[in-house]
């Protein structure tokens, strides 16, 4: 599979494509993001794990400007999220500017939200035609290509309600990819799926990763984080409490909180025994 052009693949020492600096966000008195710092390099698969309610989804939504934050800064692909420079001053985005930014960032969320009144093919061409102004013919051509890559070549004319959960989620990935995004964000893309459907979606994500797409993946699938993830950030109570290469975080967690979380998620065996299970 080849999802992204080669110029997107970059060396590990390239400057970070996404830079999150000291971002905070509250809902009322609840500090949901409490000074988050995070770097995502180009071509990297950046996994975020952590207990429920720790702020993972909120962070992802900030990256896509779906949610605004109170302080700090996010830079994505040399765009300061939320602001445009005019006459040397950073001014808040208009609705149109925010929309244009979101079109460059793909999001696949836990609850599959394919447009229920459109077929799979119509779902995939909707963004390119309506947002990017592509011609219908060329949009259909690339959609056909994308759909066969996610294994849905025979489902063009199906409505979402006629697909299994795994097929819907793969179509949602194709819909996001059709926008030719700089970054793909995944928010627990498999956690609403039946266990036997998880594999097919993770397979598509893995292919995308090995193809050089920059990905931020919030997941409860520790196996995926371990095998496909380059670096892993562990979130707890709105903070990133541990951050490092996947192999290190899993083998030698430095924080007791991380060790505890990992223990809950690998209930069967300690790290060494786990590999033989896999």
């Amino acid at each position, binding site marked *: 599979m080849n999802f992204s052009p080669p110029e997107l693949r970059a060396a590990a020492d390239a400057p970070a494509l996404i830079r999150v600096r000291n971002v905070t966000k509250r809902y009322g008195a609840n500090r949901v993001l409490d000074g988050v710092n995070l770097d995502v390099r180009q071509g990297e698969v950046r996994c975020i794990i952590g207990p429920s309610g720790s702020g993972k989804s909120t962070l992802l939504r900030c990256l*896509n400007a779906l949610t605004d934050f109170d302080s700090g800064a996010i830079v994505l692909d040399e765009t300061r999220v939320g602001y445009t420079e005019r006459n040397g001053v950073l001014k808040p985005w208009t609705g149109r500017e925010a*929309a244009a930014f979101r079109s460059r960032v793909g999001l696949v969320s836990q609850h599959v939200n394919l447009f229920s009144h*459109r077929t799979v093919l119509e779902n995939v061409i909707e*963004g390119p035609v*309506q*947002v990017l102004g592509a011609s219908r013919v060329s949009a259909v051509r690339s959609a056909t290509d994308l759909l066969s890559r996610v294994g849905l070549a025979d489902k063009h004319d199906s409505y979402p309600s006629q697909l299994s959960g795994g097929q819907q989620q793969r179509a949602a990935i194709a819909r996001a990819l059709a926008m030719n995004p700089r970054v793909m964000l995944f928010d627990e893309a498999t956690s609403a799926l039946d266990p036997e459907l998880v594999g097919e979606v993770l397979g598509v994500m893995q292919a995308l990763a090995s193809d050089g797409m920059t990905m931020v993946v919030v997941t409860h699938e520790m196996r995926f984080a371990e095998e496909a993830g380059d670096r892993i950030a562990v979130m707890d109570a709105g903070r990133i409490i541990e951050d490092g290469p996947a192999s290190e975080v899993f083998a030698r967690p430095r924080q007791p909180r991380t060790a505890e979380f990992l223990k809950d998620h690998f209930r069967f065996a300690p790290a060494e025994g786990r590999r033989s299970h896999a």
Partner: protein
Amino acid sequence: MQRGLGLTQLTLDIAEHNAVPLEDRPVERPRSGHRHLVRNGLVWAAAVLVAAYAASVVATNPAMRWDSIGKFLTAPIILSGLVTTLLITFLSAVIGLAGGLVIALMRMSSNPLIKTIAVGYLGLFRAVPLLVQILIWYNLGTFFPELGFGIPFTDIGLYGDTNVLLSPLVACLIAIGLNQAAYMGEIIRGGLLSVQPGQVEAAIALGMTRAKAFRRVIAPQAAKSIIPPLGNDMINLLKATSLVSVVGVGDLMTRAQGIYASNYQVIPLLIVASIWYLALTIVFTFVQGLLERRFAAGVAR
């Protein structure tokens, strides 16, 4: 003895029957519907009998004047009334839809003042009978002799004679249109609420502006649940236009009344009007069915 034997036999039968596992016992399948056929036949026969009797009573009534029903059904004056009825229905539906959308969006606004205005509007226009509203707009000239735009508390502005500006037709259009806006507002709001928030968020995440997400995702999905109650409402609207006959706008009902006031054939002319209302309702229902099918895409089949 005989009795005892029978009892033993029965007990044996039951024992044998129970020995067959539940999944292997024969079941009674609904037969090709003999009984249904008989029952349906009886219902149909009764219905035809009643209908035939009613028809004969009406048809043989000397006051019925079938000839005049036939004559007036397509009389130019009745047809012009029909056109006026359709015109009022169409224009008030347009006012109602546009106003209803505004009211629905205001009602869903997070601004409490805007929301309160919408709630007040709904309360007022749904509480006062439409007949009263028509009469108020029609008689507005007796209350405000002049209407227009201008700067409050000054004489600067554009004003005109209320009775000229508010011809009976315009008064009726405003009355029915504003009343419709209240009802359609609630129907539209229900439709908008039926769209799942995730669908809107997916559109926004894809890079659509709010306006585009409304046009491409919210509106078509809301339409699916709006059309059935809207069709109902349009039929109510069609019939409600007959109320304008109280101010003599010249709709179908006004025309029928005008004719029977001079020839005293009350029932035949009311039947003429009924036939036209029935025909229009059938057309509306047909269009509603078409639209429902058009927007049904994606419903689990």
